[in-house]
């Protein structure tokens, strides 16, 4: 019996440029790399038509997921909580990705969310400055995970909005509302121009002075 070791599912994927690419997390289940950047989807679905209800009401939802499969799954998760319909007796009519209208413009995003902590459910409002809404949502998930140890399944996004600068509530976003913003970079991060040139040992200590 010859064991085929060529399809080694447990090898680390080659590290990619994108620092947000945490595909090593998925390498045990998907042999192919994928990025965990969030995409916004519009999912439209309804219950299956039956004798009692020929034309069931159609529901539309906008949500964030890393891919379409997960988006449809999340759609049923939410719809189950709102109506008596499950994936087995319903159908998804359409799923479309929603793209950022102005990805070169910086906006202040406010995100209202409901999350489950170890002791109960809480509501939260967070603000982020970013060029795209997907970027802000990803930032939010990362921040919730780091600050509150809350993972993706335990977070529900209630609402997102682009906030004009005057109405921002958080100091961390308000401090960048300055058209003559000016600050120095305090120390220089010395790193080789590509990961290939990285070495474990260096001949001399780096000069961090800017």
């Amino acid at each position, binding site marked *: 019996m010859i064991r085929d070791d060529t399809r080694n599912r447990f090898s680390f994927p080659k590290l990619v440029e994108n620092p947000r690419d945490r595909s090593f997390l998925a390498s045990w289940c998907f042999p192919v790399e994928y990025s965990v950047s969030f995409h916004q989807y519009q999912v439209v679905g309804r219950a299956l038509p039956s004798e009692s209800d020929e034309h069931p009401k159609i529901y539309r939802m906008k949500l964030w997921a890393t891919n379409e499969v997960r988006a449809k799954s999340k759609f049923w998760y939410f719809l189950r909580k709102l109506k008596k319909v499950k994936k087995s007796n319903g159908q998804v009519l359409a799923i479309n990705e929603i793209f950022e209208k102005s990805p070169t413009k*910086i906006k202040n995003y406010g995100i209202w969310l409901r999350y489950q902590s170890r002791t109960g459910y809480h509501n939260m409002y967070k603000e982020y400055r970013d*060029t795209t809404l997907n970027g802000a949502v990803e930032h939010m998930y990362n921040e919730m995970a780091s600050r509150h140890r809350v993972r993706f399944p335990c977070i529900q996004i209630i609402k997102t909005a682009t906030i004009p600068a005057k109405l921002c509530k958080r100091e961390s976003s308000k401090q960048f509302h300055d058209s*003559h913003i000016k600050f*120095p970079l305090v120390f220089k*991060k010395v790193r080789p121009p590509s990961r290939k040139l990285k070495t474990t040992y260096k001949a001399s200590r780096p000069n961090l002075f800017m």
Partner: protein
Amino acid sequence: MPFKRYVEIGRVGLVNYGKDYGKLVVIVDVIDQNRALVDAPDMVRSQMNFKRLSLTDIKIDIKRVPKKKTLVAAMEAADVRNKWENSSWGRKLIVQKRRASLNDFDRFKLMLAKIKRGGVIRQELAKLKKQSA
């Protein structure tokens, strides 16, 4: 020792990591503490982490988030390209690029030129030694 190079709107930076390595870009707006909105005449305006930028001494006069045409005009007015190529940092990079792109014949010519230069220096040194001896 106060700081001389600031992250500000109009600051020219050199990209030192990633896809746009080696490009001169202008900071057009600041997103947050780690990222800036960055633009150059030959690229789409995008966000970039400060870790990927090395600030230069060059600063151009623009308002927050200018149109592409205004940006290009301001870069021409401030003569960024010439200032960069005449600065010691810019010159060093040009020389590095030239050295990296030498072919074998060029390296041979370089070797001969170095030997010649060394010979001339040694002759002068010998003259000076004779004078002082």
